[in-house]
């Protein structure tokens, strides 16, 4: 812009090309993007965001245009500061400018009012998803994983899992959010805005996925050492698949079949594992760590940090502190045969 004066600009041009390329290719789509909604909660917000974006971009360009015009239009016959100041500006011009400024302020008020109304309408639509007949899921945040409990009026039909939530496509879900330790925040950008999990409080979030898919979420309130690795996955699937999944999750753990799996179960029950983990159907019943009854049915381990494969699981069990330093799981030095057996057993827990 010529308004900047005699400032050398050639150095500034080298970067923008790369920047624009990167910005363009980064795009607005992609998982975990708020502008890639898959349900009404995120969808309404996304629409509101675009409205505000275009209006604000327009306002910004207008302000910069006026500013540039202000700088460029004045004939600069002299560049000397010794130029005498204009202590008594022309009264007519001042009046005209007052009119323009007042008009700008009035426009600002009108735009803000439009935003306000749009915001209220969107806000109401978020609360409109509330319904006592919704599927109810309780999420309890802990450092640094998510305990998920599917509620049911019939107590024996409830079950717990961890770090992975399945929901039926097209059905609204009510999430009741609590925390056992510090403040966390439940956020799956493709589906809904976030809601904090606050100790001593219970907060509620409603969401619905209208498109089947796997959506990644992440903790969005700084909660300590491994806040960066406290993620989870929401799987939206058709109703039949969802019901089948629920039925499978309600069942206790599969009994080990092969000799190696049986040995693996022995290793599990003899190791520190039982001090923290539950596998329903066995003697392991501690609840301070994720429920492993159906570990093999999950896509990720370590709260969304690692894919659930044999190799990753083996590394995680051996020394979780190397992968997620500071998290609550201690290292477990097992002999190689014991570790392989344990992995075979855990892989069988579908």
């Amino acid at each position, binding site marked *: 812009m010529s308004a900047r004066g005699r400032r*050398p600009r050639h150095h500034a041009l080298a970067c923008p090309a790369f920047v624009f390329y990167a910005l363009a290719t980064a795009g607005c789509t992609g998982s975990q993007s708020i502008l890639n909604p898959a349900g009404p909660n995120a969808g309404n917000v996304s629409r509101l965001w675009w409205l505000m974006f275009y209006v604000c971009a327009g*306002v910004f360009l207008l302000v910069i245009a006026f*500013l540039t015009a202000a700088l460029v239009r004045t004939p*600069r016959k002299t560049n000397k500061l010794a130029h005498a100041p*204009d202590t008594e500006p022309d009264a007519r011009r001042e009046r005209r400018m007052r009119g323009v400024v007042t008009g700008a302020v009035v426009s600002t008020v009108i735009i803000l009012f439009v935003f306000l109304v749009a915001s209220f309408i969107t806000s109401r639509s978020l609360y409109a998803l509330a319904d006592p007949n919704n599927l109810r899921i309780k999420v309890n945040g802990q450092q640094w994983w998510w305990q998920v409990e599917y509620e049911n009026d019939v107590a024996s039909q409830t079950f717990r899992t961890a770090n992975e939530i399945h929901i039926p496509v097209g059905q609204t879900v009510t999430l009741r959010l609590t925390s056992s*330790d510090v403040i966390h925040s439940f956020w799956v950008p493709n589906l809904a805005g976030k809601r904090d999990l606050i100790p001593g409080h219970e907060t509620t979030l409603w969401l619905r996925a209208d498109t089947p898919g796997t959506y990644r979420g992440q903790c969005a309130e700084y909660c300590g050492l491994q806040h960066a690795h406290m993620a989870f996955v929401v799987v939206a699937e058709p109703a039949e698949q969802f019901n089948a999944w629920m039925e499978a999750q309600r069942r206790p753990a599969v009994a080990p079949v092969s000799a190696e799996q049986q040995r693996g179960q022995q290793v599990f029950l003899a190791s520190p594992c039982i001090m923290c983990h539950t596998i329903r159907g066995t003697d392991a019943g501690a609840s301070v760590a994720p429920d492993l009854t159906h570990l093999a049915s999950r896509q990720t381990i370590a709260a969304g940090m690692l894919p659930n494969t044999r190799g990753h699981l083996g590394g995680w069990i051996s020394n979780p502190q190397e992968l997620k330093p500071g998290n609550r799981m201690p290292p477990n030095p097992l002999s190689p045969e014991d570790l392989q057996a344990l992995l075979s057993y855990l892989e069988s827990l579908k």
Partner: protein
Amino acid sequence: MKAEENTMQPDQMSATTSAASTTAQAVPAVSLIEDQERAELERTWSDEPGLWGWLRSVDHKSIGKRYIVTAFVFFVLGGLLALLMRLQLARPENTLLGPDLYNQIFTMHGTTMMFLFAIPVMEAMGIYLVPLMVGTRNIAFPRLAAFSYWIYLFGGITLYVFFFLNIGPDTGWFSYVPLAGPEFSPGKRVDIWSQLINFTEIAALAASIELIVTVFKLRAPGMSINRIPLFVWAMLVMSFMVVFAMPAVMTSSLFLTLDRLVGMHFFNPAEGGDPLLWQHLFWFFGHPEVYIIFIPALGFVSSIIQTFTRRPNFGYTALVLSMIAIGFIGFGLWVHHMFATGLPQLGESFFTAATMMIAIPSGVQIFCWIATLWSGRPQFKTPLLFVLGFFFIFVLGGLSGVMQASVPVNLQVHDTFFVVAHFHYVLIGGAVFPLFGAFYYWFPKMTGRMLGERLGRWNFALLFVGFNLTFFPMHQLGLQGMPRRVYTYLPGTGWGKLNLIATAGGVVMTLGIALFIVNVLWSRKRGRVAGDNPWGADTLEWGTSSPPPSYNFEHLPVVQGREALWARTDDAPVVTGLKTDCRDVLLTKTFDAEPDNTMTLPSPSIWPIGVAFSAAVAFIGSCFTPWAVVWGAIPAFISLVGWGWPKPKDEKCDLTPVDEWSEEERRKEASRAQ
């Protein structure tokens, strides 16, 4: 002046604001006083030489300069911490910094910038400039100003010493409980953070009180309330905001200390406390805090625009009223930091409306300045370049803020890099760019030399390009789902490219800051010598030498118009009759600045350091035991007694009865009356 009347009647002084006064003596603004008087003023007002004199100084210029330099050092430290963060985040799963160190670094970065740089540097500019701009010899309560600096310095040093001893706070600059509570933050890390609040907020409160009193009572005659320069208005509004906001954060940090040290239950839900109480208390301070940082910058922009467009600012009244409006409305926004906590819908709506509303006075400011630029003759010196950068960056940041005022949008972008982008745009664009402009603008006044103009342009260019390169991609990152305060991220998220760009921008910004430091160091010795008024500006500080003498003005000026120097006629009156052998200043009435009284300001003293040191002992000790309050109270009491102990020399200024005057004094008075 006769000394038997303790209260000076306005018409008995030979200061004048109107030609009707019978004792008026219209004297030219050119220096009139004899060398002897000048020497006497110098003797009265200057500090003793050497380290001892420097430690005891209560000269607002000396204190202001050291405050600015110290704040800038913390700015550089905070910036280096940010650079480390950016280097860690440049690649996914980078191993430069582990989680513990990264968490300490981002906490230290935020704490340094918000508590040790942003507010202190604005207070410092106020301490230096306001007494000069209102036309008086020193700031009100000068020993309190010295104390404010020392307690701030001790607090900052303490924090960094603790940081290098691995006791740096690691729970974020706003330190939410229960993470910062006794169960989840073992050790003393959060305690030192909590005590730092005490250090810095006491310093800010002290400085604000002085500024308010200076602006209300020490203005030059003729500077009525509608002639106060816009920067002084900004400092006044900011100071009032500090007075109301700081107690909230001191309360919250007190509660946190009590929870951690003594086992109270303010934030323990099991015993009737509430983690949300922390958030409300903190953000009741935290939101006004950012306006406290921002409003002095508005003052900088007004000053610079006025000078470099060669015309008075358009819409003075609107500018003043909108600053005051921002000050008020700023206290009604704090819940917008808590939209995700599940508050009732109606309450949230109120804060959405208030948050959007504050865009209106901000907009008024922007529009008035554009109008000024439109009808003025812009001179593109470096200060104005920084102001133009401010426009670009701050308006963008303000608009992203309006977007976040809406609850639904906020629920998606809260605690993501979108917010990080927003607040850096408004804080760096809205405060740091004007601050750099102010540095370039007032450096000649403070040191007597101009900063290099060419280096200044490069400084601006690097900072502007680097800043946008660093923070613009963060909007995108937030929209793509990247939360903030994460020490690393997975490769599969696709955030790597934009993070790399942001890191590159960070390096460019570092170069820009380095260039500024080079410019300052070089120009201090070799810059072009500035005269009294190299920019042809209008405010009173440009009406004295560069740097100003210890007594600021040979004669205190009498203000004839809103733009004091531009309205000054050749036969402008000045104040005469103040004593030169003691620290005599003129008090004027609050609204019309009619001369009201004279007063003796305190002389240099070592006791403010004593009080600051005692307070430091109390605060640092309070990390470990409640008894520290007692340990610190005893030396504090002793130092306060020393501080307030009346000196015979001060008494002589006002109260010595006439019949006790010495021969020399009678002779001096006789010659003065002639």
